[in-house]
């Protein structure tokens, strides 16, 4: 997993509450065998005017000009500004895969759906909970100021605005440590290789039948 320390990036506002995982990546794309390549289909139903299907050449599909992600000023956005209960719905990991593949590394919202929030950390995305009033303010500023960027510093737990105002945010220590060091769950478990090997050795003596290869 790619580590996250600091990032300064363009902010893309998504002004709707309860954006569910089906809106993030519609279910026809879940039959894929890959975890990458979902970026072009992120928010597919909002982003394009036609019905998206797997295998289409997305570069020639008609874009919905009203969807902000399609506007030049939000190209290359890395920070997604959202409303409450972002990521509700299914537990499948395609939603964070799609956001990451598009290029989003940070999502700021007043609240997140539980499983989605967890899944973000498993995939190197930083979801930040910021109170609704401040989120409101951010929406206003992003809208009025073209090229609006935020700087996120994970170690300091701060979001810095272009006018130097700082928003402090809270994050679980354990998760912060993982993301700062780019440790995925697997990487973390592999820090305990010795424990696993010691367990196997002891267990193999006590219960050899469990170690027969299939």
């Amino acid at each position, binding site marked *: 997993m790619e580590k996250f320390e600091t990032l300064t990036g363009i902010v893309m506002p998504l002004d709707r509450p309860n954006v569910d995982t089906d809106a993030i990546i519609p279910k026809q794309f879940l039959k894929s*065998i*890959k*975890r990458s390549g979902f970026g072009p289909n992120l928010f597919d139903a909002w982003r394009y005017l036609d019905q998206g299907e797997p295998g289409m050449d997305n570069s020639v599909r008609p874009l919905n000009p009203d969807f902000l992600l399609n506007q030049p000023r939000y190209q290359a956005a890395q920070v997604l500004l959202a409303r409450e209960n972002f990521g509700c719905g299914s537990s499948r*990991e395609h939603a964070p895969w799609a956001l990451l593949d598009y290029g989003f590394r940070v999502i700021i919202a007043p609240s997140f759906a539980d499983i989605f929030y967890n899944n973000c950390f498993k995939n190197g995305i930083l979801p930040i909970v910021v109170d609704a009033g401040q989120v409101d303010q951010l929406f206003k500023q992003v809208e009025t100021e073209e090229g609006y960027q935020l700087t996120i510093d994970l170690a300091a737990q701060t979001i810095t605005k272009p006018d130097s105002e700082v928003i402090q945010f809270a994050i679980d220590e354990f998760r912060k440590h993982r993301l700062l060091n780019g440790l995925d769950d697997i990487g973390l478990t592999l820090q305990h290789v010795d424990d*696993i090997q010691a*367990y196997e050795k002891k267990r193999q003596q006590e*219960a050899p039948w469990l170690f*027969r290869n299939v």
Partner: protein
Amino acid sequence: MAGKTLYDKLWDAHMVRDNGDGTALLYIDRHLVHEVTSPQAFEGLRLAGRKPWRVGANLATPDHNVPTTDRAEGIVDPVSRLQVETLDANCEAFGITEFKMNDLRQGIVHVIGPEEGATLPGMTVVCGDSHTSTHGAFGALAFGIGTSEVEHVLATQCLVQNKSRAMLVSVNGQVPAGVTAKDIVLAIIGHIGTAGGTGYAIEFGGDAIRALSMEGRMTLCNMAIEAGARAGMVAVDEKTIEYVNGRPYAPKAKIWEQAVANWQTLHSDADAKFDKVIHLDASSLKPQVTWGTSPEMVISVDGRVPDPATEHDEVKREGMKAALNYMDLQPNTPMVEIKPDVVFIGSCTNSRIEDLREAARVAKGRKVADSIKQALVVPGSGLVKQQAEQEGLDKIFIDAGFEWREPGCSMCLAMNADRLQAGERCASTSNRNFEGRQGQGGRTHLVSPAMAAAAAVTGHFIDVRKLG
């Protein structure tokens, strides 16, 4: 100090380390792999340059996407074909044993694990599939996992887990003839609800459970997840040991003796404390049929479709109305007047040899009713199919007008070509009656294999015991 539950014993025996934050690193003995939830996990391994920690702990087979008709032409649907081919390629690349589509041993993961002796008492068994709870029938700790966790197990042979609370569901009394494990578990879910087991690991106990065969216990544990519990389990006894004996991956000779001595300790201590205990009387149970779109919406076959007007809880009332609307049923209709269009006998819940024998007993010498558009029998594995054919069950089914198919998940979730058309009603031996589960707009009634066969030959639901 109070004694240990079976769950405590399994948990403790697999704890590699206590992480000190409420989670533990648990060692995983067996990992079953299928084509739907594994491709991104293998891709993740590859991207990180990792290898499986212990290749021999993994066993793979394609089941969800395989066709159940003639396989000579391969898989027609390109998306399904790609998933199965990807599994083949990944297993080949990483050296994982796979029973491929045309292997006699291929079948539904939860059928082949026990059949091969790859599932053993006292193991931790995981699979990227929620019905992994099935394997708990062997006194094993077995639960379903997501794709990140599939990759985690492949790479480390471990999982980070929170311990659940322990629930005992104690079922006692003589089970009436004609009432099966499926009826018992449907009645339990009807009683505690689909969220009743959330946060718990359920142990099924009591003399009615001990009286069940191993296959009956698998049916029971299979549906623990429908009661909200990630894991269901039954203590080891002589039946467990006898079932395992002689299976291809079961221990032999001296190690067998050693294993058996260990397995005999796999039960809750007499003074073990459970966080919750539920009692159920088996002697009054009747065959069950679901009427709604959740497994808890279930009633005895001699009952009537419930009336939402009598439900005081508003949320529940609305849920009932929506379910009846989807199912196109009127309140107070006798269950025996409901007429399925399709009958499906199969799935990891009920596709083992005893299930097929039970259904064949009812089908024998009878004919599928004219009103039934399709009646499918889909064995759980190639070996189940072979045994059924040796016993002549295929002939009985075919003579009665059933279709005899190749093994796989089939119409349980309609990922292959077997699916309901919108509006069709199905008597199904599977485990989920959610909207659209068996095909968009399809309507599912969950029943036991004997009850499904009885519905097929009469054209409506009927207490199978009335058929004689």
